[in-house]
């Protein structure tokens, strides 16, 4: 078994772990962490596939020998994952500040209040 | 000459390794966080310095050597800062004093 295949198996395990955390962790921050874990497993799989498709094609002169397409996709994906984490953290911190707690296990019946045009405009003004 | 340089490298790198080992042993044996911090950061600083010194004999002059030295200085700086940080964070409460350095400078 090659190291690349090994990393592929590791990626599968990371996805499983992340999936478990995302579903079972009660706290939203832990869910966000689990999402990042799962994401890095997926990116790692991209890396494995890039390495498999590489060979020595680019060995000369460029210092990289993978399939560059998945590598480029991972870079894009990393930036997207960071943006996702940032929004999630901002929402979560604000939710905690406004007294909404940090779990998402809210009961089915607590319906949100109606945001109307009127209270949208001025509701947070003192 | 080549041989002398190689021997120098080997000695220095081994000595550096010894300090890394000392840092790790200290990390395990020392009683509290602060003393462990001493062992880890400072022994490793010296260890890294010795390793860099050993490698200087192997790299190209002057670019490679300067690069190594720059690397070492950066590691020293960040090591010292991080250690001070951690130290300030774990300092016992009776030594914790509230913000005596006055209002921080703002703007620029």
């Amino acid at each position: 078994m090659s190291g690349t295949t090994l990393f592929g198996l590791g990626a599968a395990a990371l996805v499983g772990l992340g999936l478990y955390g995302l579903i079972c962790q009660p706290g939203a921050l832990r869910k966000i962490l689990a999402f990042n874990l799962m994401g890095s497993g997926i990116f790692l799989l991209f890396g494995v596939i890039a390495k498999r498709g590489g060979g020595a094609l680019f060995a000369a002169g460029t210092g990289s020998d993978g399939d560059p397409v998945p590598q480029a996709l991972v870079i894009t994906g990393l930036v997207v994952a960071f943006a996702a984490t940032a929004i999630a953290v901002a929402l979560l911190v604000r939710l905690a500040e406004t007294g909404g707690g940090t779990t998402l296990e809210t009961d089915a019946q607590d319906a949100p209040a109606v945001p109307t045009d009127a209270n949208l405009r001025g509701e947070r003004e003192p | 000459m080549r041989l002398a340089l190689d021997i120098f490298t080997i000695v220095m790198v081994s000595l550096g390794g010894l300090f890394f080992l000392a840092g790790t042993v200290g990390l395990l044996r020392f009683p509290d966080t602060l003393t462990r911090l001493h062992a880890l950061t400072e022994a490793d600083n010296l260890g890294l310095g010795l390793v860099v010194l050993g490698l200087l004999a192997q790299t190209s002059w002057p670019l490679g050597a300067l690069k190594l030295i720059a690397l070492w200085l950066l590691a020293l700086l960040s090591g010292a800062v991080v250690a001070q940080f951690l130290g300030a964070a774990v300092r016992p409460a009776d030594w914790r004093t509230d913000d005596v350095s006055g209002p921080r400078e703002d703007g620029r």
Partner: protein
Amino acid sequence: MTQAQALVAAGIRDLTDLGGVVLVFPLMLPITGLLLGLVLGGRYLGRFVLLLTLLGLGAALAIAAVVLVGGDALQYLLGGWSPPLGVGLRADGLSAVMLVTSALVMLAVALYAQRAFPITGDGSETRSSLVFWLLLLGVWGGLNTVFLGQDLFTLFVALELLTFSAVPLVALGGKPETLAAALRYLLFALLGSALYLLGAVLIYGTYGTLDIALLAERIAGADRWPPSLVAAIALMTVGLLAKTALFPLHLWLPPAHAGAPPAASAVLSALVVKASFFLVLRIWLDMMPGLLATAGVQILGAMGAGAILVGNLVALRQVRLKLLIAYSTLAQIGYLFLLFPLAAGAEALALTGGTLQVVSHACAKAAMFMAAGLIAAALGHDRIGELGGIARALPITVLAFGLAGLALLGLQPSGGYLVKTLLTSAADASGQWWWGLVMQAGGLLTAAYLFRVLGYALFGPRADEGRPPNLAIKRPGRVQELVALLLALCALLLGLLPPVAFDLTGVGRAGVDAGAAVSVAMAGAFDWGKLWGDLWPVLIVGLLVLCAVPWPGGRPAADADSVRVSSSVTGRAAAVVGLVFERVDAALRQWPVAGLSLLLLGLGLAGSLVGGA
């Protein structure tokens, strides 16, 4: 040919000469608008976006015209690089329909929201106006990219653009409940996109390309499906279902769509959930038509049926109008997924019906949310039991709501009627009568909650009597009312379009003659016998529901949920059934349970595809 027609034809020919580069326009218009809007800031943002949506509608109509007249899909290679290395754009009939629909709804929302997200007196921007207008553009850009993209990874980025723009719209109100709804939406959507991306990796690892057309060729050429392909399809499908909120993965939808400001709810319900559905369609119909022959379509159909039944029944029990509409969206998403089992037997009928459902629901649901927003703004609340007399104060708004409801319900000549007829005949043609039964039941339940709302609005005890003046009903803007009404009329009169207009659906797709299917469906639609046959069950349901509504001077509406306290026989029966479904729904909407459903659904889909080819 008249002179005007000749002029139009000439214009379209010019556009055809321009070729696929016109596809860049719907892609870049919202994105450039977002960049400009961010720098320009608040002052003229609303007007600016309105202008953009007008331009966008023009572009979408032009593309639709070119596609329809040309009779073939438009293609464009970005940067001149051809797949698999480069990324292509492609507009077939389906894309064109989606482009036009989204541009239309965007224009309506931009008109509607002028008053809700206005310019302040001193010209400085406010939080909600900047966020709303810019993210509206973000949503639009994401949608258009989804409709035109041909590369699975580009589509991933587009979906994320869409999600990141849609989620903050939900939280615009800033209350803890809406923040929680937004966070739940975001995290579940992220789970969905992670699964989708995982599928895309496996596809790349198997075929070395992410281009849908190339993949279709390579997959069709294979003797049997490799395991990685089966896993990829299951992962991508289930990820997209999570983002569409197909039952039972709908935990995020009701609070998110009900908690957003009305203008945003309209976009979210009408368009955003359709984007991920559209991708499921692309994958199952275009990338891998062989999937239609597997048991997977029955799973998707069953989920759709579950959505119709549970969504409608739970909608019936809602206390708040916006939540009722949100649950109605859940049910209407279900109709979309009936398309898959039906397409296996009768593709032309099912696809035409499904596409029409997207359009009709988009218009009707946007109109409903807009009307509900106006009602909530006027009353200061949206509790259904206290809507009494609102019809007298806001006749146009209630009319818009009612017409939109009729369109969903499926009475002639509405879009809903066409959808129902097409899908039912597809069910007959493919010998799957049970889906037809589900649709009939769904229609009656829709009638029930529609009449419940209208009953309160028309005949309920006057809620505004004896109110202090500061709580008196506030008049909405005339433009807002008219926009809602026009959208409702669009949905209602969809069936009166000439059948040739529906040919668009089939462009770029062999064997789909949508125009013919529609003409057959509309034939005899206005026959009195047929009309009566459709009408009497609805009327009976309406009467039954009206029995449960408190009349003026009757029972006090202290408990807003009249069905729960109803003493009539029908009320009791409905209450028991409703209660059971409500409990089921509440249990399914717990996060771990929804996660469990997701895993089971994914594994089930993978199992149903193993061994197929």
